[in-house]
């Protein structure tokens, strides 16, 4: 039988985790609130939007800390990815040109759409009609083209 891993007997996180622990906890609480929020008066997909938004924010936070500010160590960054604090696939996309602000991976999944195209939120604002307000179905994004 495999050993039971609890919070107590787990390996400690790498150094520097204490610095970002509070912020991560805040994100966790927000996520929990979003999960428990009432669905009344919401569209079918709308329940998931806050979840997408918060995970995006959290991933972005960790991404910025490691790549932009260089404030956390590589070990800690990898540990965070491994423990699901950030979405590694999403971050991988952010490193690519044209995807710097990508909201979620679903929005660039062309095979899942009727016309084999990306989500409307990937369309640059100047190509949309004047005053056209969009909010995509998959994650509630209002536009994440790189030049917006």
């Amino acid at each position, binding site marked *: 039988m495999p050993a039971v891993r609890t919070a107590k007997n787990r390996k*400690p*996180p790498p150094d520097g985790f204490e*610095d970002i622990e509070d*912020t991560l906890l805040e994100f966790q609480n927000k996520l929990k609130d979003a999960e428990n929020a009432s669905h009344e008066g919401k569209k079918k997909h709308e329940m998931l939007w806050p979840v997408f938004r918060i995970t*995006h924010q959290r991933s*972005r936070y960790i991404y910025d800390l490691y790549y932009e500010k260089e*404030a956390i160590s590589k070990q800690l960054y990898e540990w965070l990815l491994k423990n699901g604090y950030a979405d590694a696939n999403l971050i991988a996309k952010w490193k690519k040109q044209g995807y710097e*602000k990508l909201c979620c991976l679903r929005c660039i999944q062309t095979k899942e759409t009727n016309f084999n195209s990306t989500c409307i939120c990937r369309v640059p604002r100047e190509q949309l009609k004047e005053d056209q307000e969009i909010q995509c179905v998959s994650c509630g*994004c*209002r536009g994440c083209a790189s030049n917006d």
Partner: protein
Amino acid sequence: MESPNKRLKPSPPENMAKEDDFVPLNFDDEDNTTEQYGYGATSPSPGSATGQGMSNSPFNAPRGPQATQPRRDHRNDPRHAKDRPKSAHPLPGHEPWVLVKTKYGRYFVHNKDTRESLWRTPAHLKDAVREHEQGQTLEAEKLENAKWAEEQLKAMRQPEKAVAGREDEGRNAQDSHNRARRRRSESLQREDEEALMAEMAAEAEHAEEKDAKDAVKGVEGLQPKTVEGGAEAGYGSDSSYGEVEVTDSEFEDDDEGGKETAATAHMDGADQKHEGGPVEFGEDDIAWQLAAMEEDQDLGPNQDGGDDDDAADYEEEYDEADEDGASDEEAVLLFREMLDEHKISPFAPWDKLLNNEDILYDDRYTLLPNTRTRKAVWEEWVKETAARLKEERAKAEQLDPRIPYLAFLAEKATPKLYWPEFKRKYRKEAVMNERKLGDKEREKLYRDHIARLKLPESARKADLVNLLSSLPPRTLNRDTGLDVLPNQLLSHLHFISLPAAARVPIISKHISSLPPAPTNAEAGEIDAEAEKKRDDERKRREKALAEREKKVEEDRRKAEKEGRWAKREAREAEREVREATLGVGNRGLREQLRSG
């Protein structure tokens, strides 16, 4: 003259209900996450469920009662887009208040301390504002006079012919000017009357509204001024406004059906200032201001998200104007200083900073022109602070996690409790959840400690003395204080085996029997030894390096030599071939055979 009732109301009646029109520009918009690219500033707060599709405007204009009303599109007006606070004039006697003039000649008052801005001048400031404006008028008149004199002088200097030619022209211009002026004054007068009527009507309609009285007062206060303003407008003086309340007169004029000629329409904004009643600025105006601000920042709301400091930006624009002070570098330095002072964690996200009210109301926050620069400075600061922290931590001595745990054990552990019981009892304690130590180690230490507590006291004492004598004189000597015992001692189980009462005399006795700390000479000796060792090491490395270089050089020379040999051989071979071919000549085979 058309009936005054036809005229559009100068301000929507609902607006009258709001005593002071938009006061501070800071809205409590909670969900100002910076980097939520896809999820722009329009996304509602995480808690609010209904907010999702509510507001699509890029900024969060205050939701006044006016919000539902059909509005004129002021935002598209180029004038609005460009209007900016231009100069601030202190009002003597009302210290924190300043009168701010915008680029297009509109006025509002601003309190530097509370940071509130009012289009409508509060009653207690009216006198000061009027004084200021009278001073302005005088100055303007002086200027005008000087200009006129100069023109006259110039005209006199012109040759007669030119004057004759120009006179007609001048007369025509004068005429048209006069006419325009007359027309303008008429229209102004008419408008004043209309405005008054409109005010009255509005007031009658909304008599039950709570500040109807104020409106009446405003109208009454205006009455004598109207006359004065109308009369003054006749002079065409540039600053012929009676009261400093801003009236959005231009649009009213437009609404009247463009009655005013182009000449008047394009006059300076100040020229058109006249009494339109206490017209309040509604949401539109705030909206265009915000829009202008955002243009200023050159940011989409999605990228920035820092909408709630638009207010601060706005304040700042004239803050800077009257300070004239801090250069960019200084501003940056001050901003960083502020970040340091507020103990901002470099690991906190940007929106956390924006939610920090202390910072938003700090004067240094407004030194930088917009949120984008602020963010850039903040990022730089974060980078440097994080790097510095990392360095400091690397330098700082690592505290053994066992020390606090052992201190805790010394206090709480008893042989009466098994480990699981002990663990359960103190599971909330911070030491029991310390990640660095690990549960297994904690358990082991506990069990060992309990086992040792069961030993006779003499044995434990002997162990402690052994431990003490095992420590080197550098760490433990006669000068060591009882409260700065070395870590090797503190992190040892034998140290806590005795209760503090029994332990302290033993330790102090032992310490007093020790020799003093090794002197500098001894320490120096050790240092010298280490130095020598290092020196040897270095020499060895240098030698190795030299040898390697020598070898490389030799190889190089050998290769060169071989190259030369090869070349020489090649040359020789070539020569042989050449000789052979030269020897043959072109005399033919027969000749050769004969000679051969």
